[in-house]
Each structure stands twice: as C-alpha cells, then as structure tokens.
C-alpha cells in the first residue's frame, strides 16, 4: 500500500509497471502541475524503489549527474552523482524538465537508455553495469520547447512515452477533495473554473491553471479562507500579470464565488 496518493488518469500505472519489468526507460510529457512528479513518487513506492530526482537547468553538467572528485583531509575522493547512485544501487532516476539541460549533457544517458544499460565514467575509468532495479525516467513540458531547446531525436527515441494532461473533471474533483478535505460542492466549483480557464488559447494566457493551483485554493478554503479570496491568491494572481486577463479572471471567480 503506497502512502503517496495518486489517482490514475488512464493506463499509465500498468504501462509504467510493464516498462519497469522490462527495464525500459520512460519519458513523461505534460503541462506543469498535472501530476508528473507525484506519479513517479507513487510508482517508486509501489515498486519499492528509491527515487533519485534531478531537476535539470541549463547549467547542469554531466559531472552533476555522474559525480565528481571532492577533497577531504586525506586528499581527494570520488563522490557519486544521483545518476550513478541509482545505477549502482537500483532505483528510479528521475530527470525533471529535461529540455532545460543542455543537449550535450543528456547524451550521457544514451548508453543507459538502450539495451546496453551501462554507465561509463571517464574520470575514474569505470564502466558500471546497471542494477536490475535501475530505471530511467525523464519528463518535460512540451509548452516550453523552442528551436534551440528541445530533445535530440536520438535521445527522445530511446524512451517509451507517456503523455499527461490535466485530469478529467471527476478525477480532478476526487483529487482536490482528497488532498485538501474541502466539500464536494467547492471541489466541483473549482473544477468548473479550471475547465473554463483551460479553454483559453495560448494567445490569451501563457499556460492554463494546474491541478496543483486548484489544490492550493482548496487548501486555503479548508483553512477557513473566504473562497473568493482564496481563488484570487492561488489561481488568478498566479496565472498572469496582464491587467486585462486579471480583470476577466477576477470576474470569473466572482461569478462562481460571490465576493462578500
């Protein structure tokens, strides 16, 4: 029984388990706050494997993944990076927002992500064969891609792909209730608001409201905040800085929850 709460959207749990059983790497794409990280954590617990999370950024070097030499009183010693740890001990190595990392950094994953399943470390001359429980998982948000950022096709084509979207209304409602403890009525309203905001196109708003923000709003309400205020702080202000958009979102909230 896993402690982390995760409500499946479709067949992702079965697929992930199958991939883990066959030692295949998995790629997860989806917008922010739709449950990618939560899913990995829940699967880690379900499969009984540790999760090593690395949040990628454009200054991430291969040494940050593999490891480097450090100094102590006896001189230098080798310190494994998160990737190497997972390869040695078994576990899920989860690289979040992988397109933020430079393309030359992600190339170190290639030998791990195909049938070879080995990690060569050129600094120490070691070639580590992956533990049978080692699994590689990467994720990214397709909305943030552009010409110079993006995965090399040679990297992308080594993964089984799972595409996440915001959960369906009834699933999302259940998630909000479970996470925050608000009443079903309030959760339904939040889901309605989200449904409406998600209809906006990218020319109106940069990215739609995430399930995570809805849960924040619900948590504030459960704490006793006035629903209108809770939505203003968690949903409206977090989504945009543009006055027109703010005005409309504010209007939408006041239509659902009267301001008083």
């Amino acid at each position: 029984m896993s402690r982390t709460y995760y409500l499946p959207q479709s067949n992702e749990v079965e697929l992930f388990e199958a991939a883990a059983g066959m030692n295949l790497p998995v790629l997860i794409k989806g917008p922010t706050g739709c449950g990618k990280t939560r899913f990995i954590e829940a699967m880690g617990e379900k499969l009984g494997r540790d999760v090593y999370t690395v949040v990628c950024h454009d200054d991430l070097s291969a040494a940050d993944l593999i490891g480097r030499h450090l100094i102590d009183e006896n001189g230098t010693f080798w310190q494994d990076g998160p990737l190497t740890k997972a390869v040695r001990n078994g576990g899920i190595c989860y690289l979040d927002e992988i397109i933020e990392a430079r393309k030359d950094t992600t190339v170190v994953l290639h030998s791990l992500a195909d049938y070879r399943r080995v990690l060569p470390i050129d600094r120490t001359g070691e070639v580590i064969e992956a533990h049978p429980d080692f699994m590689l998982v990467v994720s990214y948000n397709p909305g943030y891609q552009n010409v110079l950022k993006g995965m090399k096709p040679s990297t992308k084509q080594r993964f089984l792909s799972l595409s996440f979207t915001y959960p369906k209304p009834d699933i999302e409602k259940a998630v909000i209730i479970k996470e925050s403890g608000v009443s079903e009525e309030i959760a339904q309203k939040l889901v309605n608001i989200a449904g409406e905001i998600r209809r906006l196109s990218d020319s109106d708003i940069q990215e739609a409201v995430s399930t995570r923000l809805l849960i924040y709003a619900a948590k504030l309400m459960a704490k006793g905040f006035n629903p209108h205020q809770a939505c203003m702080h968690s949903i409206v202000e977090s989504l945009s800085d543009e006055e027109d958009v703010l005005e409309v979102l504010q209007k939408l909230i006041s239509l659902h929850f009267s301001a008083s």
Partner: protein
Amino acid sequence: MDQKVGQFWDRYVTKKASRFYEKSQISFEDKAKSLKIFYHLLGGDKAKELHITDKRFLKTSRTLLEKFSGKGKSFFLAWQDDKALYFPATLAYFEDKKLNDMHYYWLCAMLSHVNINSHNIINENKKMANFLIHKYPGFQDFYKNAEEFLLGKYPELSYINPLSEDLIDDNSYPNPLWIYPSVSNYTTLLDFNDEEEISRQDGKKDKTEELKMKKKAEQIDDDKETDGLLLFLPESLMSLMEQVNVDRQENDSFDEDALYNAEDLDEITLGKKDANLASRIKMDLDISANSAEDYPLGKGYFRDEWDYKKESYLKNYVCIKPYISLHVEPLPLPKRLEKMMKQIQAELDLMELDRIKIDNLPYGDEINLDSWIDYKGHQNHSNHPQRFFQSYKKKTRDMATLILADISLSTESGITQDIRVIDMIKDSLMVFSESLQKLQDSFGIYAFSSIRNKKVNFHIIKNFKEKYSDLVRGRIDAIKPGYYTRLGAAIRESAKILQKQQSANKLLLILSDGKPNDVDRYDGRYGIEDTKKAIEEVKQKGIIPFCITIDIEAKEYLPYLFGKNSFAVIRDAKKLPKVVTEIYMNLTK
C-alpha cells in the same frame, strides 16, 4: 414621413436620455479586450470578433420581433451572427457603475450560450438566463437586482415577469438583458421552419460569398497585369493622355477651356522630361504620393527558383532589385512605444548578459577548484590538461540576425479601424531594433514585395554595417505596402547576405502576414514548394530560420514550410512588438 420619423426619434431620444445614468456609464471600448477573453473563457468561438452594434431600427408588420421591441423604435441591442458578437457602445441602465460593468459580462455570457437559431427566442433567453444564474452565483445576485430594478423603471418590461407571460403588447420595451436574433437570421426564421433548411441556406450563402471573393481577387489580378504592362511602356500612357486632351470634337472653337487644357497638357509634357523613376512609378501604378523616394541600387541580381513539377531549379529566373529610401526624415523613437521599450529593457537587464565565466584557462583571474580537485583525483597526472584558472569576460553573443519583413499589399488591411498590419510590422521593427541594439547583437533589416519573377523589390532598411540611428527609424517609418509575397526569392537573397556575416550563430527572422503568393503561378502549391526549398537551403547553410506570422490560418502551412518548432502565430497583432522580442530572447538565450 421623414419628418414624422425625426419627431418620433427626437421624442424617443429625450425620453431615453432621461432614463440613463450617464455618470455611471461604461463604454464598450474600455471593455472590449476583457470581454473577448471572457467570451473565450466561456467556450465561445475563437474566430468571432466583438463589435459595437448599430442602432437596430426594428420596423416590420406585427411580428414576433416587433412584439417585444416596440413599433418602429430603434435600440442598441446585443446580438450576434456567424462572424461576430455585437454589443451596445455604452451601457448606463443602472446607477451603480459596477452593475453596468456586470451588464456587459452578462450579455457576453448570454451571447456565448443562447442559440441564435432558436425559434422561440423569448423562451431561449429565459432558459439561458436560468441556466446562467444557477451555474454562477455571481450572476444570480446581478440578475435578480437588475430584473427588479428594470421592472420598476420600465413597466413595459412586464413580460419578463413569469406570472404574466402573455402580456406582450406593442408598448413593450426590449429587455436589455436579453440577446436578440441577427437581422439576417430573423428573415430566414420567417421563411423556413425547418432547422436543416436554415443550415443549408447558410451553407449556400457561404459558397456564393466565397465565389464573390474569388472573382474579386481575379479582378485585382487583371488590374495588376495592365499596370505591369504600362510600367514598361510609360510613353504609351503619355500619348493616350495627349489624345484625350486634344481631341475635343464637340468644342472646335478657341475658348478659355481649351486654353486651360492646353496649359495642363504643357505641364504634363514638361513634367515628363524630368520625372525621376519614383514619380513615374507613382503615376503608372497609382501609388499615393510619397515624400520618401525609393532609389534603386544597381540593375538587380538574378536568383534561381525551384519548380516542384520539374524537380529542378529554374536558373536565374527571379530578378531581385535592391532599393533604398532616400530623403527620409530621421525619427526618434515614437512616444507610444516608449513604455513598452522600458518594460523590455527591464527584462533584458534581469538576464545578466554581460558577464560570462570561462573555465579551464591556463592562467586567469581566479583558481577553479573543480579542475584542481579533478587533477588531484586524476589517475595519470601528466595526462591532465592542467588548466586551473577561470576568468570572467564581457559576453559577446556572436549572433547575427536578419529580419525580413513582408510588406505586401495585404499588410494594408486593418487590425482595427485605425491600425493596419503594416503599422504593427513597423512598430515591431522599431522595438526589435531597440532591443537588439541594447543586446549589442549585429543585425540587418530588409523588407520585400514582388511583382512576378521580373521584379522582387528588396528594400534595405538597415544593413549589417550601418549603425542603428534615427535615420534607420525614419526608413522603417517610410515603409509602404507594396505588391505581392514571393517569399522564396526574398529568403534566398537574405541567406546570401547572412552568409557573409562572420558571427557563429545566424538567425533569419521572417515577419509575415500570410502565405507566399504572387500574380503568376506562385499563388498556390508552386509558391509553397519554392519557399520550402528556400528554407531547406537556408538550414543547410547553418542559418536558423524562424517565422512570426499573424495569419490565423498559418498553422495549416507553416509546419510544412518551417518545421514544427520554427514558427509562431500571434493572434493578437497588437502584442506583436513585444512578442517578437520575447521570442527572440528565447531563441537566442
């Protein structure tokens, strides 16, 4: 009759004026942008525009519409058709400004839900109003208050009272909270009772409209063809004019008129002698007078073009004619762009562009501990590069960007009543140049339009060597919409220019408002294929092409031309100047 209508109108206006609270009036202009987003929020059709409605002068025999509109009165009502939503220009029914504001949102919500093809529009309105107030508690308070208030103020509105449903008489006043059918819809409603019939009718209408459009386009094409002919035979035009003036059969005798005409004629002949090229083109092609002159630089170059049917290049098929504008006034940055520029500069400052760390140097400002530790842990010390220093250097981005702006005739079309596409392109070019100047990137700006393969006008706004100055801005300001869009040729020419630059990274940024097209076969598959080929050539040369367009249909052909991640469609052209810069920053980070 006119007088009667006038009297009636006068009486009505005075009556009406007294009923409104002008102090708490809200105008559509201030709300338009928010309402549009709100309409999208409620799932409205994104292709529809929002407009101000004309007065609806409702005058028919006793009909359904008349029953709830009053006889022959005119009103500002909210309604919609296939293309747009129409709102009253101002709303001032309520004393409280907030309520008038809410009134606009209410109408917007109603417009997104009410089925305009419904037979019983009264019931439809009631149904939707009920639906909305149940879904949105915020509307519930508004509607209840508004209904009560309006009923008290306009007793003629009695029919919205559920108890007296049948009380629809000639004196009733249209309910400002309701949506009314469009004029065209109303007639179809009368003629057909079957909804299928109506939709069929609509389909037909679309088709005939499309045909009309096509015909119109063909006509324009013909015009251009004769223009093109005249361009190369200016003398023939002159002789024609002479004939017209001299050949006056009905007026043989010498009179003042004839003398006057003769004087005119002399002036024309004189003018012809020292007419420069620009003024001749003006005359031939009927371009409005222009203080700036386009001066040709050389005879032009010939470039190849790709023929997809023959699967080969047509050698030296297209003639590119470079132009530069002379006699332009230097122009400082326009006031309207200053605020935007400040915002962008603040963003640029945040990016900390000036300092960059360089590792692994044999000597430098600081010791790089990482490389020292690495050396210590290295198995074979003599094998290690032993570069232990790092230093900070001012960053040069080493980026050359060529902006290619499409200034075809279609950019003359309006975004709003006052702003044309070409104005947005000009603003974008200015804001963009400012940003690039700030970033110290080297850049060039070129604009193009074409008439067949014979003449692709390639206007030099700023080449890579010239410094960005008020004069460049003046040239941007002097840009006038030209003819057609032979995109492939312009891309090839731009690539040639970019290739001469020394920078490591080269970006070709294309600002466009539509598909490639020209008067000849370039309009259609031929043009698309040639452009695609040109882009492939550009990529092979190591230049990154990127296209920014405001054409909503662009998603259909741009992925084919540029690849999936190499273009951006901007729906709201007003955001163009800012978005162009943002895209650039993301591209070259």
